[in-house]
């Protein structure tokens, strides 16, 4: 296994380290050199931990073979979104308000679990201010530096795509893992709400916030997920967990194919790629079942109201202080509007959330679905200069355009994995979402793995283009 950071995955790096094809020090040094080369244009990181990462790599080179079974992430370069605490480093949340934040005393629980299992943190990745939005400035998209990487975990996705880390932690409140994964050609896993710890993560909307991995392959997403979920002992069985379902890779799998909402107001190239992906899944043995989830628009509205109301409450004190003026105007307006929503509006949204969850549960039950599929986003990466998306029906702002298809699944709390499924006419990546029942992270990953194995999309890396 050669050390080619433009294409190597976490599991590829593990194989290389095991075979002693390269050392942890070499892996980390090359990753840091790549960051030095790409960061001036990409801006995926807020801060790179060069010295600490190199020192840790030397430690792991001395001890990596001492533990059997091997720690699952030992020596692997990982990025972490700058809303997660990392001990000894300030958590700035992409905001001038926290520019002088004190250093965190301890790691966020997710960071702790990964570090305990051997991960080497390369740096803090860029987030949209307080994780509230999809632009992630100043980070750009590795596929086209004139375009945004999506958000709010845009720095994490861009770093993974360019190879300045091989996996990164993000968070998803309205699509913030899946959107950047979709528009950077990476894999994003939003687990079931409430299953992974949020201790040490700066909140946006606590009843929706969900941490999860962004990686270059489905295997890698499962690897990171198991570690973060405190299930590292199961890592050795990943290949078995993600094995084909039968003679046909997806034999016996029933997938819901939405006939409305998820097929409306999306770019033609995205619609076409989604249709091709659906047929490919069918060819692999899945049974496609047309379903009409009429509550999807309600699910989106519920997510929006809950998101705004809860974030307005999180920032209650900031909005009433002079320092609060340091929050960017657009973000502040969003929080202020949230803080003005009435209690009954919020409570009715939570009532409707139960209604929405019952409706999707009934849909899965009625059609005996194992999962549903949908385009991850209705558009590919928009231009940073305009922040608009062009649809056949007219232009739309990026915030609404990129979150329309992701937010319903935050209301339901279901696990979703976004995987690459094609490219548009500008050679920009398109994402496919596979949406499971609660706690079916491994089932949707298994479905995604079959698709990954049988298609070419995962063999194209942004990092191969021009570094």
């Amino acid at each position: 296994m050669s050390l080619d950071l433009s294409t190597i995955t976490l599991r590829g790096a593990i194989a290389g380290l095991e075979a002693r094809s390269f050392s942890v020090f070499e892996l980390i040094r090359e990753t840091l050199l790549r960051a030095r080369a790409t960061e001036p244009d990409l801006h995926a990181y807020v801060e790179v931990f060069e010295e600490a990462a190199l020192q840790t790599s030397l430690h792991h080179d001395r001890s990596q073979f001492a533990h059997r079974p091997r720690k699952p992430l030992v020596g692997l370069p990982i990025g972490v979104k700058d809303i997660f605490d990392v001990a000894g480093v300030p958590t700035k949340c992409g905001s001038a308000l926290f520019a002088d934040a004190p250093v965190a005393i301890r790691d966020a629980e997710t960071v702790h679990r990964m570090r305990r299992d051997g991960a080497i943190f390369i740096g803090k990745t860029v987030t949209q201010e307080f994780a509230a939005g999809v632009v992630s400035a100043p980070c750009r998209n590795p596929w086209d530096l004139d375009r945004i990487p999506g958000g709010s975990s845009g720095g994490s996705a861009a770093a993974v795509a360019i190879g300045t880390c091989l996996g990164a932690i993000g968070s998803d409140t309205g699509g913030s893992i899946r959107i950047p994964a979709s528009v950077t050609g990476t894999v994003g896993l939003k687990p079931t709400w409430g299953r992974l710890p949020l201790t040490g993560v700066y909140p946006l909307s606590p009843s929706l916030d969900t941490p999860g991995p962004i990686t270059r392959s489905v295997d890698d997403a499962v690897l990171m997920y198991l570690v973060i979920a405190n299930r590292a002992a199961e890592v050795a069985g990943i290949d078995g967990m993600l094995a084909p379902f039968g003679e046909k890779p997806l034999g016996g799998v029933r997938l819901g194919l939405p006939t409305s909402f998820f097929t409306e107001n999306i770019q033609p190239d995205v619609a076409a790629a989604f249709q091709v992906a659906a047929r490919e899944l069918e060819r692999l043995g899945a049974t496609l079942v047309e379903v009409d989830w009429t509550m999807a628009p309600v699910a989106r509205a519920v997510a929006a109201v809950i998101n705004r109301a809860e974030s307005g409450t999180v920032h209650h004190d900031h909005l009433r202080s002079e320092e609060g003026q340091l929050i960017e105007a657009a973000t502040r307006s969003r929080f202020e509007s949230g803080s003005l929503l009435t209690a009954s509006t919020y409570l009715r949204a939570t009532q409707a959330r139960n209604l929405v969850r019952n409706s999707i549960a009934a849909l899965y039950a009625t059609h005996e679905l194992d999962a549903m599929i949908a385009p991850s986003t209705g558009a590919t990466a928009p231009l940073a200069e305009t922040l608009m998306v062009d649809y056949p029906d007219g232009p739309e702002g990026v915030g609404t355009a990129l979150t329309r298809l992701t937010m319903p699944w935050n209301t339901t709390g279901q696990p979703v994995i976004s995987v690459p499924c094609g490219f548009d006419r500008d050679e920009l990546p398109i994402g496919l979402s596979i949406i499971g029942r609660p706690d079916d992270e491994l089932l949707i990953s298994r479905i995604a793995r079959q698709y990954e194995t049988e298609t070419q999309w995962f063999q194209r890396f942004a990092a191969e283009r021009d570094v």
Partner: protein
Amino acid sequence: MPTPNDSAKALSPEEFQALLAAAGLTISAEQAPQVMAELELQRANAEIIDAALEHADPPGAPAFDPTFPKDASKDAPK
């Protein structure tokens, strides 16, 4: 029947400013329209929610089952 969100429809800009002040928010004159636009978006969302709740099950309907049982009919009362 009026819903809790109907009251927001009648807000004039002056009332909006008064509401902001009552809530302790210090918002510049330039920023107020942006906040109002955001609020308008959420009011539209609240109307979608109100419409959905109008057709909601009556109190006493089965609670959300997080396991998504595969065959709902098996759980239905005989």
